[in-house]
């Protein structure tokens, strides 16, 4: 800080010290004291305590939490994916991976696929999938999975 800064700081501080002095001097302190005591007497001490009991900072935090939770619920509703349609192939207890199926489940799957006019028209699928395999191919697959 150079000399000019120090001078400016001093001047600023002196100016700040004077700020509001005249207005404060014109305040009738005795009358203000009487008015405050009268108001304290007239307004019961419990008046407004319900809200006063809550720190404004806590009220702000509570309001912010309500907003965040509300916004979260709205966003969840807006971005939630549409419910999935019925599974194309109902396999009781089947997981997402074929390798997770037990031997009886795979056999059940095999039977379903082997049935003529099964639940799904295999020819409609553009990609080659499990349903495109023939019964011997599926048996071979089952045997390989069983080790």
């Amino acid at each position: 800080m150079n000399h000019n800064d120090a001078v400016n700081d001093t001047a600023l501080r002196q100016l700040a010290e004077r700020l509001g002095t005249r207005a404060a001097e014109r305040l009738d302190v005795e009358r203000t004291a009487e008015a405050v005591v009268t108001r304290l007497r007239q307004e019961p001490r419990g008046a407004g305590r319900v809200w006063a009991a809550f720190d404004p900072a806590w009220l702000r935090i509570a309001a912010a939490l309500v907003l965040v939770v509300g916004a979260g619920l709205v966003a969840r509703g807006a971005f939630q994916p549409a419910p999935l349609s019925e599974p194309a192939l109902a396999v009781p207890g089947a997981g997402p991976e074929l390798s997770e199926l037990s031997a009886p489940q795979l056999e059940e799957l095999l039977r379903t696929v082997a049935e003529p006019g099964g639940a799904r028209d295999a020819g409609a699928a553009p990609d080659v999938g499990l349903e495109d395999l023939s019964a011997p191919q599926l048996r071979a697959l089952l045997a390989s999975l069983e080790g």
Partner: protein
Amino acid sequence: MSPAEPVAAVPTDAALIAAWQGGDEQAAAELVRRHARALARFLAGGGAPEAELDDLVQEAFIRAFRALDRFRGQCRFRTWLLTIGGNVLKDAFRRARRVRVVPLDEELRSADGDPHEHAVALEAERRLGDALGQLPRLQREVFLLRAQQGFEYEEIAAALGTTPGAARVHYHHAVKRLKEYLE
């Protein structure tokens, strides 16, 4: 040699607060007498219109007396009272949405001494008041508590619920910006 007359002990703020909490209205009146002018200066420095100063001072005292149960003596009563005054002023601004400025000629009419010097001083104060109005509230309050009221950073920090270091930073930011405004 006559016995020395007992010196009337001046009750501390803490004693007056305890007396008020025990139902002594005169203790409350004494606290108002003791701190009203400092509070009025703080409010006026923060931009309170003089016409509303009495009402704002009263409101700050009423809020303070109502909230005394929560005053833990973490700082002086006056510092705590001034921060309540800051809240009262903020609410008043919110209601008014604008700061009314006392016309210059009204101030000049009530002036004693050299009218020219008075006008110059008044203009400087008005410019500082305008500049203070441009500051964020925390910077403004820290500046007033430090520069106008003469409190230490530790005291200011305790009243505002911050650290002395942060209070110091707010003060220096305020001074820097005020200088920019006033240049």
